[in-house]
């Protein structure tokens, strides 16, 4: 039922952490991931992210393994391309095509980079409620009315998804093979047929939604209270400091240790 909604309420350290701290931590991880292509550093980073989520939010790799498996073909394709394009010593030669060692390492490195970032985002959305994201945005200076829209989107995406699914199912139960077809073109036809009623429905609905928000004071200028308070606590500071230290350690690792698999080149 909650296909587009990753958030799962819980009481772990990461669930309770301030969304701002989590966003800061993500930014640090992103910076590290995007500034290096060294496979050893990226493997270490991914390992830390995986262990961190397991320890701080009880998110086991099993819960996101399926999504990772979907990226693997992409990573392999990328690696193959890099292996063919990059120069340098060959790792292997298959049928006259030489696979560059540097290319393979680069491709796998980029793969690890995707893994690290993906797992990080997953961990964030599982542990952070949409309204906390909105609140965090508001706290860093975004006006509430705009910040609220992020949480609003999480409310209505499932609704649209649900509606689309019902319309497609309604076609299938009336004997339409195309609405449940795996053939993208035939399925596409069903989706086109569905779009107009969906669009018409959304137009009518958005006017009603705007009204019901109005009726509950969304556009009032006056001071707003915040029932949920999020305060940046010591634990949140520790989270940020820990991630920064970790990033520093990885950078040191990059400078101090020779890159692996490079025979003195």
């Amino acid at each position, binding site marked *: 039922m909650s296909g587009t909604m990753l958030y799962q309420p819980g009481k772990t350290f990461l669930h309770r952490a301030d969304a701002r701290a989590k966003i800061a931590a993500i930014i640090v991880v992103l910076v590290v991931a995007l500034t290096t292509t060294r496979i050893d550093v990226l493997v270490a980073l991914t390992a830390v992210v995986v262990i961190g989520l397991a320890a701080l939010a009880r998110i086991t790799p099993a819960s996101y393994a399926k999504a990772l498996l979907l990226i693997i073909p992409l990573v392999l394709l990328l690696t193959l391309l890099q292996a063919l394009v990059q120069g340098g010593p060959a790792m292997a030669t298959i049928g006259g095509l030489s696979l560059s060692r540097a290319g393979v390492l680069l491709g796998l490195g980029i793969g690890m980079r995707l893994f690290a970032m993906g797992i990080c985002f997953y961990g964030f959305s599982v542990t952070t409620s949409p309204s906390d994201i909105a609140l965090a945005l508001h706290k860093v200076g975004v006006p509430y009315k705009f910040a609220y829209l992020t949480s609003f989107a999480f409310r209505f995406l499932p609704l649209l998804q649900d509606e689309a699914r019902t319309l497609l*199912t*309604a076609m299938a*139960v009336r*004997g*339409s093979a195309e609405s449940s077809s795996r053939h993208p073109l035939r399925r596409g036809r069903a989706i086109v047929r569905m779009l107009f*009623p969906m669009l018409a429905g959304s137009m009518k609905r958005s006017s009603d939604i705007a009204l019901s928000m109005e009726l509950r004071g969304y556009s009032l200028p006056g001071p707003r209270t915040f029932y949920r308070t999020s305060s940046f606590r010591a634990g949140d500071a520790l989270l940020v400091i820990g991630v920064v230290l970790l990033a520093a350690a990885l950078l040191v690792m990059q400078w101090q240790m020779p890159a692996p698999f490079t025979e003195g080149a």
Partner: protein
Amino acid sequence: MNHKDTVIEITGVEHTYGGGAKALAGVDLTIGRGEFVAIIGRNGSGKTTLAKHFNGLLRPTNPGGTVRLHTRDGAIVDTRGTRLHHLAATVGYVFQNPDRQIFHDTCREELEYGPRNLGADPTTLAREVSDTLRLVGLEGREETNPVHLSRGERQRLAIASTLVMGCDVAVVDEPTTGQDRAESRKILDSLAHHHALGRTVVIISHDMALVAEYATRVIAMREGRVLTDGTPAEVFSQREVLQETNIRPPQAAVLAAELGLPGVLTVDDAVREMSTVLARPRPGATPLPHDDKVC
């Protein structure tokens, strides 16, 4: 029930949704050709989950559970492993909200959609469309845009677009929600007309007065199981059993039970039974001298 005339056969069906909630906890059920079945029960008792198994919208989540459809040509189809649109010719399903199943600009196109998918004969289709529109009380509205119909009319249009496919069974989820009394009757009358053609109708409903009046069989659900199953008279007379699931029989039946009059389901029944009692000279009740009225 004659076994030969079975249309839907359900054995040991359980259904657990993703979140872990068990919506069906073991249901065995046989639906016969030509029945008018009403599934009743509280919100969340598993009514819709059960009904969605009838045409493969949902499949049992336990390996032992099966749903088999007996098609007109004598074949027996297991909904597991059969694509949805292949089951459409046998069991039609009308969703609760008409607006999520109407996607054409005219009533005619809306009705033609299903039969065309099933490969209907184009020469007789126009005829069937106008016949079905008449059946649901929308005669002559072929070229009307559904957005110009009232909510109740759109509900009847959604029902018509399923009935026109000539399925053996029509499953209709809460057809009268939010409808006024007159419109509710028109909707149920449409289904009754279809039933009179020898087809099977299954509805989910909270409106016990309508259930008592139209259904030939009532299945009461509670916590994912069949609580009781029988004719409306049988089911509505089990007041203690129904109380467990907070179902209240129609007022006429409750009143008659309170008064000790058996076999009353509808207002007509009650009026008949009660006037018989009132017309009888009452034993032990000697009329007072000034009472000049004859009871």
